[in-house]
């Protein structure tokens, strides 16, 4: 589903946002974890064809999204700070995007129902609160139930109930053969739905694999708590 090979991203000032990442993700729910500035969002943007890698390849569902944007029909994304046009209604926007994904209006209604946004979908996007916008963004990402959904900080701006809702939705959609890549700081909650994890620090991969394998921190101790796993590998890397 996702294949990164020797991926590098170097900025003009000479610093690396991503340094030599080799990674393959087939299916499941991948937790993309790392401290601020670890390169999570940069990696997502390269995957989506928004940024060009300095070296290496990023393959999404067998294609390069930069040269073949049609592949994005099978991919949904929620950006960290999505800038939806404020002067259109949520429904107008989703129906517009549905055209490009070869979907029907019923798919728009389904996404709205899943995210519980039917109450305000006919209002202008500019009038949405941060939480409403986040839910709307996730509805946009899961529109038409694509093969892969990438969520960058999906639970930010959401209240605790909203967070639980989102995690439940991820779990439910995963059972319908939809894979997820989720980048977030709320690790304790994410651990409940993740099958895999990719831990980044300073643009490098410091750990990757199934949660069960990563959770065997030492011979005596095993955990599924993503926060503990993350902190363990981060400490190891710093030392």
């Amino acid at each position, binding site marked *: 589903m996702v294949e990164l090979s020797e991926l590098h991203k170097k900025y003009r000032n000479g610093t690396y946002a991503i340094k030599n990442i080799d990674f393959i993700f087939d299916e499941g729910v991948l937790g993309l974890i790392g401290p601020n500035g670890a390169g999570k969002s940069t990696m997502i943007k390269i995957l989506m064809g*928004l940024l060009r890698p300095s070296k290496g390849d990023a393959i999404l569902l067998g294609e390069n999204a930069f040269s073949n944007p049609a*592949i994005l029909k099978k991919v949904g994304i929620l950006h960290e700070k999505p800038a939806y046009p404020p002067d259109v209604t949520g429904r107008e926007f989703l129906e517009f995007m549905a055209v490009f*994904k070869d979907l029907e209006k019923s798919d728009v209604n389904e996404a709205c129902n899943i995210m519980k946004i039917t109450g305000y979908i006919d209002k202008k996007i500019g009038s949405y609160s941060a939480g409403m916008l986040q839910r709307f963004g996730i509805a946009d990402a899961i529109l038409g139930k694509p093969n892969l959904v990438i969520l960058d900080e999906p639970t930010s701006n959401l209240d605790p109930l909203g967070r639980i809702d989102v995690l439940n939705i991820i779990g439910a959609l995963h059972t319908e053969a939809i894979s997820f890549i989720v980048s977030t700081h709320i690790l304790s909650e994410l651990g409940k739905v993740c099958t895999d994890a990719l831990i980044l620090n300073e643009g490098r991969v410091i750990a990757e694999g199934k949660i069960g394998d990563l959770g065997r921190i030492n011979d005596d101790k095993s955990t599924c708590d993503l926060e503990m796993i993350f902190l363990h590998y981060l400490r190891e890397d710093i030392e």
Partner: protein
Amino acid sequence: MNKFVKLISWEARRILRFPLLEIFLVLIMLSVVTEMFYVSQRMSEGSAPLLLSTSRRIVYLYGKWIAYNVSHTMSNIFIVSILTGSTLIGNFMAKEIENGTTKLYASHPISRSHIFISKYIVCFFSLALVPLLALLISVFMIDPRFPLYLMQNEREIISLLIVVLLMSFYITSVSVACSVFSRNVAMSLFGSIGILLVINIVSGDYSYLPGRSLSSLYVLFCGNQSYSSQIERTIAIVFLPLVGANLSFISYYLFTRRMELS
């Protein structure tokens, strides 16, 4: 193709919600109307033909006072169009690149070339619509003799249309280039206005540069060949499309092949 048309109509609906369009339409109307009253007054006093025949700038227009009127207002319209175009395109293109809306579109299955071309087409026609509407409405509303004259002379109408389209193409290409290069609303706005106005001021000394060339082109398209040398005429005709096409191509290449939407 259907999706591309849908994209254009989506962008058109969005740009038509832009309130500055109406504001500048009123500004252009005012600039045209003021000019119209001035010329009408002169003519009713019997001084307009004399004025036309003695003014060096318009000797070649003797007997074609309508041409004088429209070509004179062309410079006013050009300046207002610069402000309209730069503001409109800065807000529609640079702002969307800067705040991430373009990134959002590019994250969906819409090709970058379609995004660029649809925005370009919509900006171009919106910009062309403003002076065309202003000119036509004012011509038809202010003096009933003008439309009669225009209707008798198709060449005048076609000339007007060509010059307005050329002007819009030139302004759109410069403003889009500023937007794509700077990816910043303020820089795009001031860069675009600055470049276009400086060239406009310089055109006082070099008649083949816009905006003086716009008035000259209008007269030339109307059939008057005597206003300048062959070389100046050729440069005046070639300059706008050449600059516009080059800038548009560079902007397209940068947007679709090089731009990083971070």
